[in-house]
């Protein structure tokens, strides 16, 4: 029996897709189960942004086929410029829904590190993927978009770092969106086992070819005991793309998760970034920069929730809004009962470059435990005329003075990105967007 849904993909299509990929049974059932729920579950309700009219669910094609890149040389300049070609031995490039390039150093393979596209990993390492895929960090039935994601996941990467393995060099992924018919349900799963350490940096980039499209991204980071994960990302999707992006981590005892996120999409975007500090002495740090322009509407909710004793959470967000762009910055520091000696700090700053731009910074502290420390700071303002006066009094033009102030405002996050090429990309994107 086939039930009729309001979604563009039905049960049969999902079954067929799963079968074509040769997926294990648990994944097929998970997809079908999620699809059945997706229809009834409500959309998420990001605080202060109404998204009921946004299109997250209607698209022409679930998947497209794209050509692969046979070598680094084969890639367009826009991708090559992101990669430290001389040294980068651990790289996954995905083109729309197609795994297009993969390399992992022999040394890491010997140590048991797994890095590959997610759907292949589900076949080759079914137990590992099944254990962590939408079980701990993000649940399938949270709302319509998580359920739809689980049902239709059609790309992404799996990174597993075994116990006691510390990886010095960053692992890099590039997701290219260059086919306007491509719909991305991209899932990244990073599992860092006990006492391991890894840095993962991803870039989403779109070409001018992409008009209207839907992107739904879920990233899960599982940091086990005493593990350390640094997760860098630069999102640079097109103006016509409506994006839901959910990056979430769970931190075990003595572990650390650090996010450095450059949110540079040109289209409407809902971003959730949640770090769950479950273990005692765990540590979460989120640094995020945003540039909004045109008419785009965005909502960035950043949440660090503390269960562990002595856990520390830090949120730093800086946003620049120009034209008629509008963004909501919700920062939530939540300390559960029992998380004694926890510390939750957050800071949100928004710089407005035009009369029509809008930015709201909402710091929220939710604390159910007495023996804690917490703090927040938030501001929304314009470029300080006294700063411009000071810079101009040294002969610097107004345009250059504004540029210096804006770059300076975003620098605390940009300098944090661990791959030079990605850092450069973010600087260039910022340059282009704010000029």
């Amino acid at each position, binding site marked *: 029996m086939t039930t009729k849904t309001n979604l563009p993909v039905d049960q049969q299509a999902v079954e067929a897709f799963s079968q074509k990929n040769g997926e294990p049974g648990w994944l097929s059932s998970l997809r079908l189960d999620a699809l059945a729920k997706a229809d009834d579950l409500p959309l998420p309700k990001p605080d202060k942004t109404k998204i009921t009219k946004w299109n997250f669910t209607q698209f022409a094609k679930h998947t497209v086929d794209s050509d692969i890149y046979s070598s680094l040389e084969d890639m367009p300049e826009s991708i090559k410029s992101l990669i430290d070609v001389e040294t980068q031995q651990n790289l996954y490039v995905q083109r729309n829904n197609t795994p297009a390039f993969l390399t992992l150093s022999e040394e890491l393979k010997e140590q048991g590190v797994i890095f590959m596209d997610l759907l292949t990993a589900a076949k080759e390492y079914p137990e590992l993927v099944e254990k962590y895929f939408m079980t701990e960090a993000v649940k399938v039935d949270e709302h319509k978009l998580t359920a739809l994601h689980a049902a239709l996941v059609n790309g992404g990467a799996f990174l597993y770092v075994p116990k006691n393995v510390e990886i010095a060099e960053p692992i890099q992924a590039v997701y290219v969106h260059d086919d306007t018919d491509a719909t991305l349900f991209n899932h990244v799963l990073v599992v860092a086992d006990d006492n391991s350490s890894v840095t993962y940096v991803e870039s989403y980039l779109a070409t001018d070819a992409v008009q209207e499209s839907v992107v739904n991204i879920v990233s899960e980071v599982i940091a086990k005991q005493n593990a350390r994960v640094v997760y860098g990302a630069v999102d640079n999707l097109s103006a016509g793309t409506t994006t839901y992006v959910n990056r979430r981590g769970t931190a075990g005892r003595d572990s650390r998760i650090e996010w450095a996120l450059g949110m540079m999409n040109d289209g409407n975007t809902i971003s959730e970034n949640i770090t769950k500090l479950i273990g005692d002495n765990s540590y979460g740090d989120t640094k995020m920069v945003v540039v909004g322009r045109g008419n785009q509407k965005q909502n960035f909710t950043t949440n660090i929730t503390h269960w562990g004793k002595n856990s520390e959470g830090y949120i730093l967000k800086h946003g620049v809004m120009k034209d008629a762009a509008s963004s909501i910055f919700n920062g939530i520091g939540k300390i559960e009962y029992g998380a004694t000696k926890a510390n939750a700090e957050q800071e949100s700053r928004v710089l407005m470059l035009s009369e029509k731009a809008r930015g709201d910074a909402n710091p929220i502290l939710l604390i159910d435990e007495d023996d804690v420390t917490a703090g927040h700071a938030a501001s929304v303002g314009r470029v*300080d*005329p*006294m*700063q411009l*006066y*000071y*810079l*101009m*009094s*040294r*002969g*610097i*033009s*107004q345009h*250059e*003075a504004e540029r*210096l*102030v804006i*770059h*300076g*405002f*975003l*620098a*605390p996050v940009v300098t944090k990105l661990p791959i030079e090429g990605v850092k450069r990309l973010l600087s260039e994107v910022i340059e282009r967007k704010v000029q």
Partner: protein
Amino acid sequence: MASTLVIKDLHVEIEGKEILKGVNLELDSGKIHVIMGPNGTGKSTLASAIMGHPKFEVTKGEVLLNGENVLEMEVDERALAGLFLAMQYPSEITGVTNADFLRSAINARREEGQEISLMKFIKELDKNMDFLEMDQNMAQRYLNEGFSGGEKKRNEILQMMMIKPEFGILDEIDSGLDIDALKVVSKGINQMRSEDFGCLIITHYQRLLNYIEPDFVHVMMQGRIVKSGGFELARRLETEGYDWIKQELGIEDETVGQEA
């Protein structure tokens, strides 16, 4: 080449209130002028108005740099024309390093393609920072952010030494400095002293003049320059204070807004 900065009948308002009521002053390169006077007499307003501070409105008068009226120029154009103001309260700018800022300022004076080389810039910066006894890491710190009062003043002098303006206006460069910092700042100003550099120092403390000997001394009261002289005027102010000038001119309250 000798330069001149001529201030003619300058009237300045802030938020509708007239602060300067007709200032006249002529500066030549090679000379150091000092404007003294008690607080609230309009000294800092004069410095800010010359540079183009956005809050001050010039209602009358001219400021001519080598014959050109700088009041018709944007702030950056005034700087490029040869003016420099060491500010009393320099802005702090997050994320912009002192070194990057200084390089931008120097390159703003050069044609595209003729930018100062990194090596040359660093050499010059190191040399001047050594001279001003500044910690080398201050080059990589964000501009004025978290600088102590003394560090900010040294940093203003550092900028002046790097930029090499025709005229430097120093607005209370000595306030809040301990004696060692005051000596260093004075050393910087004396180092700049040359035929190609003119200087206007605004202060209400005589002690700076123990280290810098000015060519001319002016006293400001009620938004005007009320007395001018040589170094001997400063010496007399040091021993006798301002009361004799007020008596001489029949001024009861020297601050702006109080008419004689």
